[in-house]
């Protein structure tokens, strides 16, 4: 029996060798190696986004955006099926470590769309960069990730989200010029996103002539904010900037209005708090809370006409967060580059995708016509066409209304 099996195997191997010899041999010459996609195999794109827990809307929304892009392409690339699966980045360094290790070990992954949160990327990116992946994030906004020469800037990393240097400055301008406040305080939660964003805000606010009374911080899962808010109230600011995430952010929104001395202080978050969950979590205190976000009115016509109806149809709701269009663009950029750099049979047959070639193509993206604008990538991976707007929440009304510019 075992002899027969052996013979069968030998025959099979022989047959494979003979058949593959008939096709023109594909040889990988890429500096970082290639992904081999044989006939019938799918092309594997992975995501690493926060898809569970209190910040899940952020990641699920981006994933939905990428899925719409895949559906637009009929689920196929160069005659191969598109495989799209992934890991939860948990919006934390721990989650980034887990997702990073898991995906880096899978050689079939061509590119990663993600992560949702900068904290996760900081840990995962060294692993992915070493594995030769191209990584494109739809929602990382921390400035250091694309800062040339910074230890957190790794080859292979790009993003379609705006850089927080833009967002922090916009928030400072809004506070200074539109609200006319002179004294502001900031709170962050120790995540690199919030920490760097509030720093950009503080620096810009001081340049404009304002005074920063305090730069405080809290734990990301903290519920009781009275200590930190009392400490902030001692400086008597007119404005509090807390660009953090939903769970702790909604507690801040609630408790700020209950803290003596801060009842009438205006407060503002950033793109991490643009979600229906903010309405649910903050209750009545949400009235008058500002958030900065990409300016949806600057998105192309396709966004209102095609993208949003498709979203509603596929997922049964309006977009639940703000980086769906960025994820859509991220996938389409990848798609264009894979089409361009793949070698071999481009009609569903055996092909090779060079990893370095893919990166080069991505960094070379110029005036890519996306939903979020015209995308041109810098040498360190900033691809966004950043237009930031400020939105204001009111009780019982979602999405919030654009108030500036």
């Amino acid at each position, binding site marked *: 029996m075992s002899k027969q099996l052996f013979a069968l195997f030998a025959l099979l191997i022989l047959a494979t060798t003979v058949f593959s010899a008939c096709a023109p041999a594909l040889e990988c010459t890429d500096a970082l190696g290639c992904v081999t996609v044989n006939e019938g195999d799918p092309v594997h794109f992975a995501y690493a986004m926060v898809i*569970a*827990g*209190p910040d*899940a809307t952020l990641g699920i929304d981006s994933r939905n955006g990428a899925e719409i892009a895949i559906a637009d392409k009929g689920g196929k690339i160069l005659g191969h099926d598109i495989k799209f699966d992934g890991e939860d980045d948990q919006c934390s360094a721990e989650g980034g470590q887990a997702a990073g290790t898991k995906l880096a070990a899978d050689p079939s992954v061509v590119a990663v769309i993600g992560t949702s949160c900068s904290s996760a990327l900081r840990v995962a990116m060294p692993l992915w960069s070493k594995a030769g992946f191209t990584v494109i994030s739809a929602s990382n906004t921390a400035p250091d990730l694309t800062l040339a020469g910074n230890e957190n800037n790794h080859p292979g990393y790009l993003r379609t989200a705006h850089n927080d240097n833009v967002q922090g400055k916009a928030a400072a301008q809004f506070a200074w010029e539109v609200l006319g406040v002179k004294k502001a305080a900031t709170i962050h939660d*120790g995540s690199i996103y919030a920490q760097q964003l509030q720093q950009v805000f503080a620096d810009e606010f001081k340049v404009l002539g304002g005074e920063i009374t305090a*730069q*405080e*911080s*809290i*734990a990301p*899962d*903290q*519920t*009781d904010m*009275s*200590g*930190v808010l*009392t*400490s902030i*109230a*001692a400086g008597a600011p007119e404005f509090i900037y807390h660009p953090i995430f939903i*769970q702790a952010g*909604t*507690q801040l929104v*609630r408790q700020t209005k*209950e*803290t*003596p*001395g801060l009842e009438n202080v205006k407060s503002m978050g950033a793109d991490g708090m643009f979600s229906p*969950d903010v309405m*649910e*979590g903050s*209750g*009545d205190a949400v009235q008058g809370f500002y958030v900065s976000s990409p300016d949806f009115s600057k998105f192309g016509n396709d966004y209102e006409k095609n993208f949003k109806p498709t979203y509603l149809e596929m997922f049964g709701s309006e977009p639940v967060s703000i980086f769906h269009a960025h994820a859509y663009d991220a996938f389409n950029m990848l798609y264009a580059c894979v089409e361009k750099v793949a070698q071999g049979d481009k009609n569903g047959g055996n092909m090779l995708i060079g990893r370095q070639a893919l990166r080069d193509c991505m960094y070379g993206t110029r005036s890519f016509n996306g939903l979020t604008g015209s995308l041109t990538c810098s040498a360190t991976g900033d691809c966004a066409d950043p237009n930031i707007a400020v939105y204001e929440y009111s009780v019982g009304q979602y999405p919030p209304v654009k108030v500036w510019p």
Partner: protein
Amino acid sequence: MLKRWRQSVTLTDLVVWAIGLFIGFAIVYGTIVTWQQAQYSTEQWINLTIDGLKLGGIYALIALGYTLVYGILRMINFAHSEIFMVGPFTAVFLAKYLNSIGFYDTNPIISLLLITIFSATVSATIAILLERIAYRPLRFAPRLVPLITAIGASFFLQYTFRGMYGNDPETYPTLDILKGVIYLGPIPIPKTDALVIVSSMLLMLILYSIVQYTKMGKAMRSVSEDKAAAALMGINVDRVIVFTFTLGGISAGIAGILYSLIYGQVHFYMGFIPGLKAFTAAVLGGIGNVVGAWLGGTLLGLIESLGPNLFLSGLGIPAANQLKDGIAFAILVFILIFRPQGLLGERISKSKA
């Protein structure tokens, strides 16, 4: 005399004392610097104190559950933090229903009583089931076994609730009668805080009287002294234990509602941190001691809310409020080093432990 002293003091003792002295000095120094800077007004210190008292009241109520169970079974019921979660997480749906039919606004006090009773019932029921299913079969097992079971039960409850109600936080509708402040002389106190402080104190008093002055309380204390002897005296030990879990469950359920009134949100993970803090409070006060639970809870709440602004900011530590959990757990470590029996605890003899 000096010689005996020299023999009984080891190097470890000296190091521990040195660390203690250093910490004491740092706290005093930080406090003095903060006072000199006069960064905060008197009103703000009062606010922080009120905040500490309200947190402390909640910690005390949860700590009571740890302490009662420990007193009787000599085990730490780590699933108690989930007993604290299940009540308010179930009652939130009742609150939302009452709000949707308009009853919540027209009869706020009755609604509040209803959700409190509901929450306490759910918590107590789960506590009793937990005892019956998870702990009773292990009563004569080695001490580590029920401890590990408790941790398992804790995860089981957390993820059951996550499975049933999902990841997202649920929000309690706000009660109009709890908005605003009341004045105690010149001091404004938010109504919610006043309610929490007063009701937690009342509840502690009631529970203390139950343990101290009722027949069942007497039985509890005797079972805690010696189970076998109590059984020989005609006390139904099982019933006493069930009663203990019920008391712990009720106080946790009510604490959960008070917690939700302050913070407005409930989610499946909400018990974890308050549970750990309450455990710290129980150890601080002396585990097994009801008055100790109250003292430990109140002290912990006060230290947590005053500490960062009082001595940490004086020491020049930036963003000191981030470290409030750090302070709470540092206290746990230091009690275990300097006074393992807690403030009001007696040294547990080997035979009892």
